[in-house]
């Protein structure tokens, strides 16, 4: 069930028209502020008093000092009993409403303006450095249909019987099965004994993207593969606002499938996406995390 479902008729409603315009203006104003005063805002994020540390990291950090709250109607409006309390909406509702106005209705590659608006919105609302292009490399698309992938072998000898650390995970995810071959980057670890939590998380939260369709790939296969290998990405279901930090763990799917990426059983389950005729789109962008500080897994809003 979508978090913020809007009827078809409301797509052209006065609200829809206004919010589309106001969201665009809002994104533009944020961009202006960030661009003009980046140094000072970064300084604030780094030097905020300890009690505000929850809010640091971006412009949204500054804005969290003054959280968006809902305006009560002025006293000249007759009081309405059912509306006495100001309506407080969760942050995810705002994110979904904003995304609705800038994510295209048809699933297709985003144009540069759309990319810019969406990455700016996500960077601000989710407070992570989201990029459509990183180090001069971009994927064939950042908006596409996701299909279900199987578990990947993490080390030689890993099977569906050795794959899970808890019975609950086994019950939930074993049915997806194990891919017969290794992922595009080989095993995650040389052996079970050497496997780290990082290896476990990388397999658990992996996606497969069409690395081979990235512009420039065929001329720079080695360089591009090095870039894509376990590259962190943010993946988001624009219809329920659920998002996750994942890595590129495999290459695929093939073009003929009509899908643009695949997700591990854990990723698909969390995003509430399914394969087949019910398949749905996701947004996915690189995360600029040179020091490897962003943990993998669900993003809480």
């Amino acid at each position, binding site marked *: 069930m979508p978090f*913020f479902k809007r009827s078809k008729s409301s797509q052209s409603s*006065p*609200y829809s*028209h*206004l*919010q589309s*315009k*106001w*969201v665009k*203006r*809002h994104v533009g*104003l*944020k961009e*202006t*502020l960030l661009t*003009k*005063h980046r*140094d*000072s*805002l970064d*300084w*604030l994020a780094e*030097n*905020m*008093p300890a009690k*505000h540390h929850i809010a640091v990291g971006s412009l949204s950090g*500054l*804005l969290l*000092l*003054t*959280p*968006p*709250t*809902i*305006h*009560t*109607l*002025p006293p*000249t*409006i007759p009081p309405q009993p059912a*509306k006495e309390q*100001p*309506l407080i*909406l969760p942050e995810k*509702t*705002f994110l979904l*409403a904003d995304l609705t106005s800038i994510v295209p209705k048809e699933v297709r590659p985003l144009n540069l303006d759309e990319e810019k608006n969406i990455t700016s919105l996500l960077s601000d609302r989710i407070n992570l450095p989201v990029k459509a292009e990183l180090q001069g490399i971009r994927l064939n698309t950042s908006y596409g249909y996701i299909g279900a992938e199987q578990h990947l072998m993490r080390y030689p000898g890993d099977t569906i019987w050795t794959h899970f650390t808890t019975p609950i995970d086994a019950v939930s995810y074993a049915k997806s099965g194990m891919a017969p071959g290794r992922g595009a980057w080989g095993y995650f670890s040389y052996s079970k004994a050497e496997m780290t939590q990082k290896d476990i998380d990388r397999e658990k939260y992996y996606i497969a993207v069409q690395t081979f369709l990235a512009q420039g790939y065929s001329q720079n296969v080695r360089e591009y593969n090095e870039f894509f290998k376990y590259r962190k990405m943010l993946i988001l279901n624009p219809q329920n606002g659920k998002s996750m930090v994942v890595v590129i763990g495999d290459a695929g799917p093939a073009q003929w499938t009509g899908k643009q990426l695949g997700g591990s059983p854990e990723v698909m389950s969390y995003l509430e996406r399914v394969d087949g005729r019910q398949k749905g789109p996701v947004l996915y962008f690189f995360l600029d995390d040179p020091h490897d500080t962003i943990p993998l897994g669900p993003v809480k809003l």
Partner: protein
Amino acid sequence: MKKKQFYSQIVETESVVVKLHDMKLKDDEKAHLVALMDSSLHHVILDAILSELSQGDKKLFLKELATDDHDAVWKFLRGKITGIEGKITKVADDLKKELHEDIKEVGTK
């Protein structure tokens, strides 16, 4: 309750809220538009203020802002920027004018 900003006393937003109320929007729709207005105003006002300050003063201002001590913020701003109240109301009024025009445009469609 809506959080008061240091500029809340000189920047009214009720005129826009009343217009939105007249549009017979749903509560969540109205709430979203009001939140967008508040946040947009916050951005233009911060931009206007920061644009008037030196690099060092920008940091001092942001530090004061983070403490949420409105008196201290005003004391700082009045000491640094001549006619700061007028500058804040000017950018806020300009933005509200645009918002009113958007509402009017929707009403005439």
